[in-house]
């Protein structure tokens, strides 16, 4: 199940989207999240969907893979769709099924909200699929840099994120290992009452915490030995390069947004 989930994962590649500057991609997605709310009729929603499809094609991520990976999220989408259908009681009554009454406005809202949700999920997933987590961190660090003036710990936050990202695979392996070791000792995480299951989590959590603390301690030592004493006076090895294409896609997004604005109902 976890293995099939692709939300938040990164697939290395050489596409146009992959090669954009992470700052440009982050700004693009943030702006897009706002732009999505401009759409309010069939035409503008259609344009949004088309736009998303173009981005997906340009990223060269296999659509089958995207859809397969986002199945758990699709369930959520269907759920929102149903909520709207069931609870919006405006417009003409379209049809009736027992106590369920479906109105025109409900159907409309349901479709629009679901589409909005869909393009948002696809767009953010494309961002994480085509940008390595560490580049996202770099991008965020630079974009948030102005906040340093108000004493916001931008460097520390970015370092925390990058270390967290670096250790995710390590900790996943570790979880798997400890889980298996306890299963081999007869612990059963998937059976019994809720109380039993909660009890079965303790043998997993305690060792995980112990090891995470040990790792943190070791890592702190290793960092200190290598001269880490905070963000002051540090130079950066990871450099970001803003290119013409980065400017261009943002300009294009602005034009697209303006177009949507004019076409909205």
């Amino acid at each position, binding site marked *: 199940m976890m293995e099939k989930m692709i939300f938040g994962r990164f697939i290395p590649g050489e596409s146009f989207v992959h090669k954009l500057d992470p700052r440009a991609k982050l700004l693009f997605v943030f702006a897009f999240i706002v732009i999505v709310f401009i759409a309010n009729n069939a035409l503008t929603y259609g344009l949004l969907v088309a736009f998303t499809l173009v981005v997906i094609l340009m990223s060269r991520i296999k659509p089958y893979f995207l859809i397969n990976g986002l199945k758990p999220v699709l369930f959520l989408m269907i759920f929102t769709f149903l909520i709207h259908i069931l609870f919006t009681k405006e417009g003409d009554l379209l049809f009736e099924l027992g106590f369920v009454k479906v109105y025109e406005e409900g159907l409309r809202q349901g479709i629009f909200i679901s589409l909005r949700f869909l393009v948002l999920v696809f767009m953010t997933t494309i961002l994480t699929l085509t940008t390595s987590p560490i580049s996202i961190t770099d991008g965020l660090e630079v974009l948030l840099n102005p906040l340093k003036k108000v004493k916001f710990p931008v460097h520390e936050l970015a370092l925390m994120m990058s270390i967290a990202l670096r250790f995710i695979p390590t900790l996943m392996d570790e979880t798997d290992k400890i889980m298996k070791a306890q299963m081999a000792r007869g612990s059963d995480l998937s059976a019994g009452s809720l109380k039993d299951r909660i009890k079965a989590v303790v043998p997993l959590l305690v060792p995980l915490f112990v090891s995470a603390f040990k790792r943190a301690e*070791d*890592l702190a030592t290793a960092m200190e030995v*290598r*001269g880490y*004493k905070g963000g002051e006076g540090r*130079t*950066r*090895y990871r450099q970001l390069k803003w290119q013409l294409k980065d400017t261009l896609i943002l300009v294009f997004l602005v034009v697209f947004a303006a177009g949507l604005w004019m076409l909205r109902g």
Partner: protein
Amino acid sequence: MAEILSLNAVSFSYTPDEPEKRKAVDTVSFSIQRGEWIAIVGHNGSGKSTMAKLMNGLLVPTEGDIRFNQEVLTEHNLWDVRSQMGMVFQNPDNQFVGATVQDDVAFALENNGVPFEEMVGRVHEALQQVRMDGFLDHEPHHLSGGQKQRVAIAGALALRPKLLILDESTSMLDPQGRQEVLQTVMQLREETGLTVISITHDLEEAMLADRVLFMNDGKKHAEGTPEQIFALGDELTALGLDLPFAYKLSRLLQENGVALQGQHLTEEELVNDIWTSNFNK
């Protein structure tokens, strides 16, 4: 030869309020010269890792002092000393800070404010020295333990240190990884004359050193060339260490009545002795 590091009657206790408890390090003195390779051996809990932490100021001695380049290690020169001293620890995973190999090697350079243009050159150079230059963008979980430790060595080398401390750096590795790391260190010594302190319970590793310091219960039990240390024989095994292969075999052969001139540390010597004492009469 000039002295690079010395410990002078250094003691350290994790529980200074309870003087009746055994000190982790108890009045240890020794010095290491530029270009030397020293192995510090002892069973787990003999105080050898505490010594490593004392040497670069992660712990402060309760008694005695530590000198780097004749200068007493204090809070004031701590960061300066650390920049000249590379250290590689036991667990390959827990010292990999960067997201990729090259980021990790650059970490110490970034901390020391080395400008970007210079960093690139140094990172590549350090990775070449440990033969990991083909792995620039690899992430740590796609590397073997031996490779991660070599990256850690490169991370230390990038700062061009005078001294490299290996704190049980090979103990969690498989034989192949251990071999890779030791080969790398030997080759580095040949090329750059780097000073090395290796803290270990692996005998083959200790045999590579110029001098061996044998720790037991926080005290310096013996000090000498590998030959002198391994000549202690049963004393070593009684204190939890092993004997080198050739040495163990020579003793067994003698016990079983095979004529030998003496006991040997290397296979070659033993083979020669077996031949001359038994077959070449």
